[in-house]
């Protein structure tokens, strides 16, 4: 993997407003290579909003956010250096798992694993040529998570990654995340159930 270069995500006093309403304010976070942070807080406090704002889907209110990649071969903007897996899995029901992942790779660029290898890591190689519409919620989730392995991007933003996953799949995801961090990646997850990796930075929203 070629993302061992040092990366930093710096968030200072960030707030995001939707319309007139301030969803959250005063979030600060410093995340470096190999580090994982978990955003926690009660429902509706803005965990998903924070992740979507970092991904660039929502305009930032006040505060600063910067992304530094030393030894970067090109100065790509943050949106091209992150993976986002949210509540919607971004998969097309009419297409097979392989086609979905090939399209994901085509759109995101910078390939790493092939669709077969990525699904194999998620222990789903047997559904490679099944339309995603036939899969269960947990299996769909695993196909969406396999996209993380397809394209080489250092920052992973995962919104409730454990939803619909069984205990075995959770262990798989944990191993994949640990690998990612070990090779210098960064991860920010919004979750109610901690992944339980050592050294997790806690970001608590709603503690006002």
């Amino acid at each position, binding site marked *: 993997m070629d993302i061992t270069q040092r990366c930093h995500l710096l968030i200072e006093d960030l707030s995001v407003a939707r319309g007139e309403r301030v969803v959250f304010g005063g979030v600060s976070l410093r995340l470096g290579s190999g580090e994982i942070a978990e955003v926690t807080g009660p429902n509706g406090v803005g965990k998903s909003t924070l992740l979507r704002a970092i991904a660039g889907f*929502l305009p930032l209110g006040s505060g600063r956010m910067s992304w530094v990649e030393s030894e970067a071969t090109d100065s790509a903007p943050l949106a091209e250096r*992150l993976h986002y897996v949210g509540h919607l899995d971004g998969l*097309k029901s009419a297409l097979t798992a392989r086609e979905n992942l090939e399209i994901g790779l085509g759109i995101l660029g910078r390939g790493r694993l092939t669709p077969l290898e990525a699904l194999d890591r998620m222990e789903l190689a047997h559904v490679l040529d099944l339309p995603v519409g036939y899969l269960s919620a947990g299996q769909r989730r695993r196909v969406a998570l396999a996209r993380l392995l397809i394209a080489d991007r250092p920052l992973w933003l995962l919104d409730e990654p454990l939803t619909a996953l069984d205990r075995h799949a959770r262990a798989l995801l944990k191993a994949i995340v640990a690998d990612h961090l070990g090779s210098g990646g960064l991860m920010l997850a919004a979750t109610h159930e901690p992944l339980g990796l050592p050294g997790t930075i806690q970001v608590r929203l709603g503690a006002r």
Partner: protein
Amino acid sequence: MTRILLVVFLRDLMLARRIGGGGVLGLVFFLSLVTVVPFAIGPDLNLLSRIGPAILWIAALLASLLGLDRLFQADHEDGSLDQMLLSPAPLELIVLVKCVAHWFVTGLPLVMLSPLFGLMLDLDGPALRAVAATLLVGTPAFTFLGAIGAALTVTLRRGGLLLSILVVPLAVPVLIFGVSAAQSGTVPFLTPFLVLCALGLASVALAPIAAAAALRGAGE
């Protein structure tokens, strides 16, 4: 970059083929409109052949609007649009490619079958050629202008009606010059046809920028 756009193009064609609906629906709608009009007008062949090009154009406009509401909505609903926002390719170009793919599936069949439908309206050879040529230039303009409406209504569940209201006024100039070029005899063919080409090219160049801006705002 070109690879990304090619992937998006092939993906949309593949989805259209797997899911079906869009293109065939537009064609059937086009056919039914063209079939019904002669019954409403009555057995006046002269009148029919005089207004034939206009009927074909109105039918093409309405048929183009029919499938447009799903252009971005399907991708918005399942989260694919988020992935496209993360792509190194600019959203404007992705929108452009999606529109081209949409036109291939819905607009091009209309253009190719329009001479056949023109026969049902008693159009003669030159008129059939003129209608097909003008539709070939005009239907992409409908698709691209419609993309603006589709992007603006992407978060609305029943956005189809609002989309039509938004897009039809924009499509009026295209309709005017398209029909006046297709109705040979009253005015020379070339002048309105060139204006039609200009309108088509302008919509291809500008609509993706507007639609992409609307899609970025829809993240809200």
